[in-house]
């Protein structure tokens, strides 16, 4: 039922998008890319109970990989774009696999701190490794890929590409969280000790979830690089990770869809309201506070009586 509503909503957006104006369509693509990252955080926070504060790191890894391949080697600007997508996901997953070795030992606030620190390590690399990452300047992309007759430089086309990736990611994650593996994650979230006594290797389950989330972060990074035309260390800073976490909390953890809703609210408030009034930050702040006070299970909580 929920999926049907989502599909109708996405289809509506998909139909309206081309007529929304050249700036709004960029914002919509923005929402969808951040929506993918938010869903990956939701897999950790909402389903596994792991609040990750370093998700921007995987986005960054994917984005820098895309930018470096494209500007140094001219790779990924044609049909090999699909290889870059695979590589971006692999890079995100590998980074997460490495970081997971340190992070998964901890839980709760300690997990928060460790992921924060690891995320900032990636920022540090991006900021300081001038020869590879361009340091603070970041990397300017020279253009989006062109797959045969399909040119991504057209914003409408690129929007549909992003929409496609979003839908694919959503279904992949939807299947995942409803699988026995996904249910075991929820079990860990609710009471890890009981799951362990039942014979589950909870460390491994959490680790796998962490790696999968990293892969989707990497995927979003690939799209992010092409969407903005620039990859910069400031995309990897703590506020970027905090934003994504807030999007999930705002939309409703443990729902997947919540991530998209949160991303829409945050991006549209920030980017659109900011162009109209200078006090948009108060509005965003008020939305956060009100959500936490009155909607502990996020905006999705309006439609449902609690967590999934």
């Amino acid at each position, binding site marked *: 039922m929920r999926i049907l509503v989502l599909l109708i909503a996405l289809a509506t957006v998909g139909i309206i998008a081309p007529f929304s104006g050249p*700036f709004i369509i960029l914002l919509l693509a923005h929402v969808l890319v951040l929506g993918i990252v938010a869903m990956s955080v939701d897999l950790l926070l909402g389903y596994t109970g792991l609040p990750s504060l370093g998700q921007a790191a995987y986005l960054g890894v994917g984005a820098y990989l895309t930018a470096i391949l494209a500007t140094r080697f001219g790779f990924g600007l044609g049909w090999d774009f699909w290889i870059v997508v695979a590589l971006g996901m692999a890079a995100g997953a590998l980074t997460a696999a490495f970081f997971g070795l340190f992070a998964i030992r901890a839980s709760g606030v300690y997990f928060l701190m460790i992921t924060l620190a690891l995320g900032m390590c990636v920022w540090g690399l991006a900021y300081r490794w001038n020869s590879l990452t361009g340091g*603070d*300047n970041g990397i*300017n992309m020279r253009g989006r890929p062109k797959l045969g007759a399909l040119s991504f430089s057209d914003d409408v086309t690129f929007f549909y590409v992003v929409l496609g990736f979003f839908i694919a990611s959503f279904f992949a994650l939807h299947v995942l969280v409803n699988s026995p593996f996904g249910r075991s994650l929820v079990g860990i979230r609710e009471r890890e000790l009981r799951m362990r006594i039942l014979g589950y290797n909870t460390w491994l389950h959490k680790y796998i979830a962490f790696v999968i989330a990293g892969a989707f972060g990497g995927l979003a990074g690939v799209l992010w690089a092409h969407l*903005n035309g620039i990859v910069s260390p400031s*995309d990897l800073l703590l506020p970027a990770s905090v934003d994504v976490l807030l999007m999930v909390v705002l939309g409703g953890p443990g729902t997947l869809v919540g991530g998209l809703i949160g991303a829409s609210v945050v991006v549209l408030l920030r980017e659109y309201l900011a162009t109209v009034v200078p006090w948009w930050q108060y509005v965003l702040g008020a939305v956060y506070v009100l959500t936490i006070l009155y909607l502990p299970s996020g905006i999705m909580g309006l439609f449902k009586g609690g967590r999934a």
Partner: protein
Amino acid sequence: MNRKVLTILGALALSTGVDAQELKIGFLAPMTGIFAQIGKDMENGFQMYIDEQKGSFAGAKVTFIVEDEEGKPPVGVRKAEKLARQDHVHLMVGGLLASTGYAIAPVSNRVKTVYVLSIAAADDLTQRDLQQYPYIVRTSWTSSQPHHPLGKWACENGFKRVVTVGADYAFGHEVVGGFQKAFEDCGGQVVQKIWPPLGTKDFGPYIPTIKRDADAIFTVMVGPMALQFPKQVQEAGIKTPLIGGGTSYDEFVLPSMGDEVLGHVSALQYSAALDTPRNREFVRKYREKYGKVPSYYSESNYTTAQMIHEVMKQTKGSWPGPEKFIQMITRLKLDTPRGPVRFDDMRNPVQNIYIKKVEKKKMHGYDKDELWNTVIKTYPEVSQFWTYKKEEFLKQPVYSRDFPPCKFCN
């Protein structure tokens, strides 16, 4: 802020309309974050000129749309896209950080809109990258432009061994690079280069590593960093003289500084203490209106507005189109608060560079003792290539953390 709302409504209403008698200027400056106050200085300078002209450039009504770029390159890109795509501005002006300049330049190509770099000093945009970007013009300075003369000045005034401490990003690299190049070409030696990140608040970890046998410390600080460093150096008991890149002592930070900076020398294309009638009048008016001495951020944007006005005068108020505009603005020769300005063939200003010393005194008829950047030497008509041959200069790579290499380190 109603003006903004109306502008947006207007833009939506005539989404294709480019009214001949309207000039839409999109302005990018940080309005939040650690650079917010600098952004305010930038906006004030530009706004003051528009107000002086009563909102009309040669008959074209000026619509001035300010966007907050937060001092972050990706945000700058997004806002530039917004200005061009949604507001359909004729030109974009601003961008604070050099890295933001490098990021917005490609946008000007994508949206085929003029981008006037009124602050962002990223060297390469008017050097090796110029050919890629037909829609940009710079009205301010390249990072290294004032620091070639400063390097020469330092070497001629008895400094032999210098340690550099520069903010670790494009601007810092280019300022240090320009200084080092001219300084070493004249016989000086840079013996150590330290790179704290942009926005560093505590220099505790860096100060003890500074070599004590140096004759001077050359700093490149931006915004709030500039206040902290001289204080901490003094507290650490280091007596080595400080000299600085233009932004280490510009009039944005100067009023908040204490006596610890007396005698420090820096270089820039503008000083509020310039004793010319044009500048005296500018300082007086600006101070009356905004209650503070104008910084180069204000002067540069004021002058930029003046340049745009001059172009519009020639076209009698109709927008000449991006290509023509670039052509016309680079042919201007103007008298501005900073002195005479013309452009070189790479769309960068040729202008006076002032070597300045911080002094406490009365100036421009104000009756209080204040800190002023007294001009102690003027290098007239300095181009971005200094005394070097353009072709040879362009053959070397852009100044970076590793170029020029630190031959005398260790």
